[in-house]
């Protein structure tokens, strides 16, 4: 009998202790704490261009910058750990953030030139850049043959497919952003989960963030930062996020989702001329503007947890999109994790890497080189 009382008392003490812990936890003002996230970097050269590739497998980002500054200085970088928002430093004592901005040191305020790069699924890089170079990986040994472009198209149409009708996936034309501070994040709860991927773009000192859970349903956000009109696009089937200037010679336009896919990659259309563009080719492939390229802007993709460590006050696209979508549901379900499932056929399947592995592709002079997260563990 006395042991039963002893057990009851111990259980009661345990409950009280646990309850106290839960209620007295102080929100960490940095949002994600100072958890160790190993940052690694690779100083590389691709097609004669000196590059620094910096990334962290645990923090879930990879970025590429040119190492040579406009004044001709060649920087040698080193990775920084537990130094957020700085992720790397150099021999001059500068510390740089994810947008390539010097946040301390003699070059404070200066900007590294971002290499033209973005993250996407391996199969997309393999088919859009046949024989793509793989960092410390085997060379492509297969054969590929590109067909001639179809009439009125800049691309062969054998792998252009229709998924839905024009604007069947509705772009967000009047995005609403909300600035959160980290106290709100913890006390009121974000609609973004810590492990959710979020795309970020910076122009001057303003940053906009776009959660995948919203982009999955809209694919394009027609946005503006300062006086720059741009479209943020995300293709859930290829996992690629690219932002471009939507100020054409003909005027400012908005972009919509045409419902067509080329090599499983989204094909936006401009609403000024209804010309069809290719997201990963970054040019117009059909219509009045055929052959026209767009100006892209660098984007950063990482998890919400990492963004909370990087930014004091993230400015995030909200669910007030003007559409009632089930943002808690991923319409692509297990697509990302199933390496055997491609929704639409592609021209070349390169099997050096699992098809849905997220990799960073760097594009120089029309050629691409790919880096894997395993290089940044």
């Amino acid at each position, binding site marked *: 009998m006395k042991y039963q009382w002893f057990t009851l008392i111990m259980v009661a003490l345990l409950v009280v202790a646990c309850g106290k812990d839960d209620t007295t936890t102080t929100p960490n003002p940095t949002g994600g704490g100072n958890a160790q996230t190993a940052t690694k970097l690779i100083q590389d050269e691709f097609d004669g261009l000196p590059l620094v590739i910096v990334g962290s497998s645990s923090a879930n980002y990879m970025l590429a910058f040119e190492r040579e500054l406009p004044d001709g200085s060649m920087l040698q970088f080193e990775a920084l750990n537990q130094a957020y928002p700085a992720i790397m430093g150099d021999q001059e004592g500068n510390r740089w953030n994810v947008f390539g901005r010097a946040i301390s040191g003699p070059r404070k305020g200066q900007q590294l030139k971002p290499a033209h790069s973005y993250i996407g699924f391996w199969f997309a890089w393999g088919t859009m850049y046949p024989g793509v170079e793989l960092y410390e990986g085997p060379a492509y040994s297969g054969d590929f043959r590109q067909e001639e472009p*179809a009439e009125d198209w800049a691309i062969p*149409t*054998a*792998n*252009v*497919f*229709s*998924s*839905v*009708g*024009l*604007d*069947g996936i*509705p772009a967000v*034309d009047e995005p609403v952003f909300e600035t959160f501070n980290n106290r709100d994040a913890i006390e009121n709860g974000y609609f973004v989960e810590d492990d959710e991927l979020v795309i970020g773009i910076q122009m001057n000192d303003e940053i906009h963030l776009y959660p995948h859970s919203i982009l999955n349903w809209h694919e394009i956000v027609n946005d503006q930062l300062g006086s720059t009109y741009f479209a943020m696009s995300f293709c859930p089937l290829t996992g690629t996020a690219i932002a471009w200037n939507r100020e054409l010679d003909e005027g400012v336009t*908005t972009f*919509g989702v045409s*419902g*067509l896919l080329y090599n499983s990659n989204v094909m936006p259309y401009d*609403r000024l001329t209804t010309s*069809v563009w290719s997201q990963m080719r970054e040019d117009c492939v*059909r219509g009045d503007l055929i052959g026209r390229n767009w100006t892209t802007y660098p984007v950063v993709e990482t998890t919400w947890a990492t963004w909370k460590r990087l930014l004091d006050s993230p400015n995030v696209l909200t669910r007030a999109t*003007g*559409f*009632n*979508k*089930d943002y808690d*549901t991923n*319409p*692509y*379900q*297990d*697509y990302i994790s*199933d390496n*055997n*499932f*491609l*929704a*639409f*056929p592609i021209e070349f399947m390169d099997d050096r890497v699992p098809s849905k592995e997220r990799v960073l592709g760097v594009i120089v002079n029309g050629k691409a080189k790919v880096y894997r997260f395993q290089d940044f563990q």
Partner: protein
Amino acid sequence: MKKVSYIIFFTLCYLLSIDLQAQGCCAGGSPISGNLNLGAAKSQSFSFNLTYDYNHLADLVSGSEELDDKLRRRINHSGLMRFKYAFSDRLSAIALFNLIRQEERIQAGAAVGSTFRKAEGIGDIITMVQYQIVQAGGNTLILAGGLKWPTGETEIANPETGIVLNPDLQPGTGSYDFMWSIYYGLEHWLFNGNRLNLTINYRLSDETERFNGQQTYQFGDELFVDAGISFPLVVSKMLLYPEFSFRYRFQTEALTNGADTPNTGGHWLYITPGFRWPLTNQWSVFAFSEIPIYRQLKGVQLTTSYRIGAGVQFDIRFGEEEAFILPD
């Protein structure tokens, strides 16, 4: 006692069908499984049935929750011709032909306007053979089996871009499918003149090729269970047969290159009120509707808001009536 056992049988069938595991698919093509209209036929009789079927799809459903999102709307018009000939009191053959027009309208907002696409053409043809196992004491039990032939068009392109429209807009599915059905009818159930009907249809989908042969696709297998009652009713000196039934539909997930296809498959439960009006001994007209009352879908799907249809049927008998008595 017999009636009680039939009620139990019917109830069990119904409940079992609801408890099947979820999956499914929004298939292209016409609503053929719901238009087979199995039933007893006398020897050397012929029936011709012409049906117009209107399927309005505007409900975007995530799981079991309908989203307040009317951006996209699909309307499927189908004209179906069904021929049935009875070689004997037991054995009949059925052929079902159809013409389909599928429309899609997207209303993307005031600033953007709306877009419209359509595809129309001949759909897949079904041929079936039915065999009447029992007809005694007001009971009818029929087994049927057949094949759906890939006669429907699957390569209709957008005339502006030349790009083939998405497969779920095409009139045909491109696949050979096997179909089987069980029909059970009970006359004078509960009261005189009425008829209890239970039909189970199952379609086993075969694989087809898409996108210039670069991809294999297999629509989900489909199960229909219809359980309903019809009874005579005199309205303004006209004899009508109102019909009321529950329709349960279950479809497994479609497969793309052997892998599950997102946003396909699920469970649907409808009520399907309708009526039949015999004009003469040979001619009758009918109308039906289908209203969803429960849906549990895989992922997010655009699905039927309501479905209505109407048609005319002609029946004629060429031979003498034969005695047909089966052991009870």
